[in-house]
């Protein structure tokens, strides 16, 4: 059983920033990620709103720089190493990996992030990977000169719709309300883009396919207008995220949607467990807030391991 001061579950911006801070404080640190580190930015072509990069920076590049920085100060990174369970042993936390390794940690920082939500409509499961996607960076190029739909109304949906116009000849942006939630300047770019066709007050009821691929989507109105069916070759869903809090749900309090409840410094309801990034119930889910909260959680974890028991 390996022993470590601070175990960080999740190697995205929150986890890597936490690791940077704990390592600089000379606390032994290990970061686990089920895949490659970097988090959601690894599949984001261009990050424009992370401070310090006026021309923007490629997502994978930003992820790589964060990794390098944490490693420089001594953080151990265990990529492609998933945590299967989190248990307790006295005052310590015991982590078991899918490779049956065990780690004992004095403190935990949960930075596991969130996964894209699915619509849960007929045809979605059937045509996943055959026209239905949650990653425009990954699959956009497959729809060169074709027609795609983007479902959603927030920053992700609108930005990815704009991104997809680089490939598709038509991008149908479908949103259930009559105004977008996305940041104003992104909305402006969307409205200026001739390839984007907006479908207001529409939901998706069915994803229809032909010959094993997506061919159309049926869009009922949220305002009691008749259904609309549009022919599309691909459907990209950006309808929110689900937090990956399962590992510690038995220990910490989460809100109704499953996001881990924390104070503004990342303290959860379980002494010794801290959380940062998209998995928490924070309002703004961005790289910069994940990084900022990662640092705060690190600070609290460092404080905790020094004071978790008092010697008499």
């Amino acid at each position: 059983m390996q022993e470590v001061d601070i175990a960080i579950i999740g190697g995205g911006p929150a986890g890597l920033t936490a690791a940077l801070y704990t390592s600089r404080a000379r606390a032994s640190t290990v970061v686990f990620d089920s895949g490659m580190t970097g988090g959601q930015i690894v599949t984001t072509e261009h990050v424009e709103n992370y401070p310090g990069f006026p021309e923007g920076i490629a997502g994978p590049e930003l992820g790589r720089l964060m990794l390098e920085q944490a490693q420089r100060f001594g953080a151990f990174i265990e990529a492609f190493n998933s945590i299967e369970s989190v248990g307790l042993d006295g005052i310590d936390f015991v982590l078991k990996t899918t490779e049956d390794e065990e780690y004992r940690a004095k403190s935990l920082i949960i930075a596991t992030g969130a996964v894209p939500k699915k619509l849960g409509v007929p045809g979605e499961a059937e045509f996943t990977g055959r026209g239905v996607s949650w990653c425009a960076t990954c699959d956009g190029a497959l729809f060169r000169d074709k027609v795609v739909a983007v479902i959603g109304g927030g920053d992700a949906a609108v930005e990815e719709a704009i991104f997809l116009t680089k490939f598709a000849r038509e991008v149908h942006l479908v949103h259930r309300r009559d105004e977008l939630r996305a940041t104003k300047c992104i909305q402006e770019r969307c409205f200026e883009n001739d390839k984007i066709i907006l479908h207001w007050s529409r939901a998706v009821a069915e994803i229809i396919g032909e010959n094993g691929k997506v061919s159309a989507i049926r869009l009922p109105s949220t305002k009691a207008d008749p259904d609309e069916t549009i022919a599309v070759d691909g459907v990209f869903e950006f309808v929110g995220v689900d937090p990956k809090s399962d590992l510690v749900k038995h220990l910490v309090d989460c809100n109704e949607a499953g996001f881990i409840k924390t104070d503004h410094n990342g303290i959860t309801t379980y002494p010794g467990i801290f959380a940062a990034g998209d998995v928490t119930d924070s309002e703004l889910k961005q790289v910069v807030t994940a990084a900022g909260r990662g640092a705060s959680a690190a600070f609290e974890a460092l404080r905790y391991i020094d004071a978790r028991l008092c010697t008499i």
Partner: protein
Amino acid sequence: MAENVMQVTDAAFEASVVKSDKPVLLDFWAPWCGPCRMMEPVLEEVAGEQAGKIVVGKLNVDENPGTATKFDILSIPTLLVFVNGEVVKKLVGAMPKKRLLEEISPWV
């Protein structure tokens, strides 16, 4: 609101813990110990909710070094569960109410 947690001293230890007819959850604490202070509201709640099933007591180790030494308490917070005067469980460190209830469930 009346305090549900019983104050235990070296002098009263025998009578209030050893001779208790109910199980006793005894918290070893000190005012300067951060995690101990964190346990205070948890213990209050447990004491109130489990009244009649288990007695919750607290012993200030600064003022009562005798009992602390007797049970080899080196770090606090430490919680000991006593049944018929014998220690049946030792819990070290702060924990939320949910876990504490799980740990003492065999005796309530």
